[in-house]
């Protein structure tokens, strides 16, 4: 050790989310950009006087078009930035913040670039795709703001791996508890062991209704049997133990399914956002090419 005081690499220790990164720097910048663009749009006449008013062919149209295209390309690079870490300083939070706020400003920039002139052509396709990307982004922001808290509350201090392990443990316990049962009762336990899908079918996942699932059916059937036995005055302790285990498994399944559902929702919007972005980049290329080739 040299005895020299080595200064630590500077790091961001402020505790603020991506929306208000650096005190909302990008939100302010985006708002200012929108206001500026709107003001210029309102205060200028299209030059040379254009009978159809503002569109991409004016100097403002070209400026906004160039700005918009550069921004779209740069914003889509977030996906690359996220995956290339390296040793150099950068803040992915800052990138996200810029991505979100500047992305919103594209509504204004893109629309004013077109001068409101939309039709059924490749140029308007680019605008439409851009709007889908931005709107899906809004959805994403909404999910990012509301779901993490629920995800955290649902999992408590349990990790996903532990949730699955808990289910396996319950299955083992069910298996050993079912050994002394007769064939009919054992079949019910087997139903829980063999016909239960944690995530379930697509229909189950979308509806959130898992009542047709093996464990739920087994629990219902065993529950009926336990009640019937009690009414008959001959409570069956072994079946009660099975019911208890099935109930615990049902609760564990519910937690795991909520966990998976929340995580899926946090990613689902990206399945629109990202492919449409790729389509947008293609449409944008087509739009720019066609403008210059067929002017």
């Amino acid at each position, binding site marked *: 050790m040299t*005895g020299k005081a080595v200064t*630590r690499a500077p790091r961001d220790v402020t*505790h603020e*989310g*991506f929306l208000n*990164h650096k005190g909302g720097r990008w939100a302010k910048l985006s708002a200012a950009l929108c206001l500026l663009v709107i003001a210029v749009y309102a205060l200028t006449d299209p030059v040379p006087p254009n009978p159809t008013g503002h569109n991409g062919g004016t100097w403002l149209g070209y400026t906004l078009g160039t700005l918009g295209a550069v921004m779209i390309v740069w914003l889509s690079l977030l996906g690359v930035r996220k*995956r290339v870490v390296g040793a150099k300083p950068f803040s992915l939070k800052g990138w996200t913040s810029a991505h979100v706020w500047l992305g919103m400003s594209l509504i204004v920039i893109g629309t004013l670039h077109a001068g409101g002139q939309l039709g059924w052509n490749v140029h308007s396709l680019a605008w439409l795709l851009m709007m889908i990307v931005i709107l899906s982004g809004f959805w994403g922001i909404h999910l990012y703001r509301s779901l993490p808290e629920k995800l955290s509350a649902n999992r408590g201090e349990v990790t996903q791996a532990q949730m699955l392990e808990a289910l396996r443990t319950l299955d083992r316990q069910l298996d050993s508890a079912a050994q002394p049962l007769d064939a009919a009762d054992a079949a019910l336990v087997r139903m829980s062991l063999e016909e239960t899908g944690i995530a379930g079918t697509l229909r189950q996942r979308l509806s959130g209704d898992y009542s047709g699932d093996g464990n739920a059916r087994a629990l219902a059937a065993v529950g009926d049997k336990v009640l019937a036995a009690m009414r008959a005055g001959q409570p069956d302790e072994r079946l009660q133990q099975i019911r208890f285990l099935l109930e615990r498994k049902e609760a564990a399944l519910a937690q795991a399914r909520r966990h998976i559902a929340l995580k899926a929702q946090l990613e689902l919007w990206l399945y629109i956002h990202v492919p449409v972005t790729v389509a947008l980049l293609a449409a944008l290329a087509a739009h720019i090419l066609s403008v210059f080739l067929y002017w």
Partner: protein
Amino acid sequence: MTPYRIAIVGSGPAGLSAAAHAARLGLSHVLLEKTDHLSDTIYKYQKGKHVMATPSQLVLRSPLDFDAGKRETVLGTWNDQTAAAGVNVKYLAEVTSISGTGDPIPGSVMKIVTRKRDGTTETKEIQRLAPPYRLTLANGEAILADTVILAIGTQGNPNLMTCPGGDSGHVQYQLDDPTEYADEQIFVIGGGDAGIENALGLAADPAQNNKVTIVNRSAEFAQAKDANVKALMAARDAGRVSIMTETTTRSIEPGWITLDTAEGEVRSACDRVIARMGSAPPRGFVEQCGVAFASSDRLAFPKLSATFESTAPGIFVVGALAGYPLIKHCMNQGHDVVEFINGNLDLKPADEPILEAKFAGLPDGPQGSRSVADWLEYLRTSVSILSGMSSLQMREFMLDSTVRQYRAGELVFERNAPGSSLFGIAQGEVLVEVNPADPSITVPLRAGTIFGEVGLISGRRRGATIRAGTDCILIEISRNAALKLMSQVPSAAREITRITTTRSLLQIFKSGLAATDLEEVIAAAKVETIRAGQAIIKEGETGDDIFIIRSGSMVVEKRIGGKPVFLSYVPAGSYVGEMAVIDGKPRTATVRAAVKADVIRIPGEPFRALLAARPQLLDNLRAEMASRTAMNNFIESRKDSFSGVVDLYTGVANFLVEQGVGEATDVLLIDEKLCVGCDNCEKACADTHDGLSRLDREAGRTYAHLHVPTSCRHCEHPHCMADCPPNAIHRGPTGEVYIDETCIGCGNCQRGCPYGVIRMDKVPPKKPWLLGWFLFGKGPGPGEPSPKWARKADPAYAEKARKAIKCDMCAGQEGGPACVRACPTGAAIRVSPEQFLGVALMGREER
């Protein structure tokens, strides 16, 4: 009867090695062993115990082989090789006295000082007689020898139970085979490693059905290795062992034991007592032989020359009795001492080349160039804390230390530099820049004293810049060597405590005081160990003691509206309790330890006297007090308007302290209101660190959506460092605790870490270019590759050794921690506890 050339007393590693070497050289010799087998200390290890062979850099010179391995293997090798070498062993030969048979040696008188219970001392003088020596055995037989090698170790002299009944038949001082006992109620007395290992051994197999209780005098198991303590706690939690702390034995009767606990007397049925309360050099016997000790401390070792010769000419002392508990050292000494006796005085110890390299390049002394031995003696006599060591201890100590010359004006270390080593000034003086704003204000430290002790004890960064004032020679003592020094040489520990107390006080008052003003205050100061959660100051109580926190940290709480509210976090190096001295009122808040802490308690009385004499000191203190009162008032004012916020703040603060943040220097926190679970932090960690992630985002505790993931906290006193055989764990220049490439994969650090942040794994092969994955899905993509992929990509992967992997705080990366940089939502932050446990936390809910 012709005297033997050499009589060797004790057949441990040192004695055995000496005897085998004597046999090889053809010297007439006899090896005297008290028991009926060789090497009793190792013989008495538990069955199957793994014997370590540290330090690994030391070359083994003994004629006997020795490698780390099972007790049985080690003993077997020695038995075979001793027999093969033709060693003349005499079993069941306990030596009861050794005395010279020649003429009185002029001027050589042994003074034996015995301390009586009433505090007076009695001095007995013995005239030393020249060799040959007569060794009288317990059976009355006598043996004559020209020279004697005392290699009796210290284990043969265990500390005995002194309570009534301590000599009963069912009290034993060793445990040979824990599986020998079944269905017994066993009490193990003593919370050191030996006691814990015995207790765990006895309770290991539930089929034995032993009821094992371990009894420890203090509240903590401070003497034992962390890994052992952890295993003990796990055994207790599993219901296999009972633990009684702060408990001493009152009496032992057949079938019963009576204990004094903190709650009062407890009497319990007891079939067996195993007392493992340490051992001490068998001083009485050794002194009777004419061998003087280095000091009057109970744990002191004999005074020896560089050839292991004691103050009695012809009696040599080697091994644990000479202060060397490590087997390898002992065996080398056994070899060396026989060489010396045989006239080979030029023999250099095995570590000589290592030490020579350390002293190379230093200026010559007044009598020309110094030898290694001269240097060691020079350092020992010039630096006050080293004076209590024997020259042999100095040798070992020096292996872990460095010495170098600093030119006048040269920087030793800077303020805020990390560092936990201790410096001693052998020659010249250094200047302490006490005021960071004005480097021209300095305080000189003279030769003989030490500095850097704050970093050593508190584990925090250097408090001031220090430069060489004149050309000087400084010895830098590594943290490990310094800790060993403090535990082995009590006088050094006391001296270091005195110096730290003085300097802490001087720092509190910043200026206007000299060390001499503080003598009275220091004399009354006491070092206390506070266990986690224990309060040193209680709100509402009267008292005016002041506490300086030497290590660990404290939290300050105040009851507001019937609930304890967290006020502040007090790191090591700070002080608390001064308000009561100034205003004389009852304590306004409670101060309790966040983690186990060492504090210096200074009684208020001498302190007030000092303040009365120096009114300007009072002003300094008042200014400090004003800022603390302002903080208290601020939180109290918030209480009315945001009671929920203050509760949450207290809750979060307490939660973090429970998570060990109190001993952290840098901790990763995740705000689960922002975390979308993308695991980009883990991926970034893996991608910047050989493809292995050092953090587990999802695991760990959570409170109020604040999550402490499984990731290194870079503790002030890292638990992982405590027991690393190759000494591969260090604190780096920016405060990070890291493991270097010398890791042997033993897993001690993983077991020692209370937070589970160290993983044992093998480094996967390098991943192909990311673009290939991006465009064509080639390779495993970002983040940690699966072992399956690694096995496929590199056939050698499966055979690779696992090594310890942990967070290095991304030291050397310009951007700082990758996990934080790569978090897309700002959920992850890495902060020091002071940064987070401040008022800033209060604003969390309002944003």
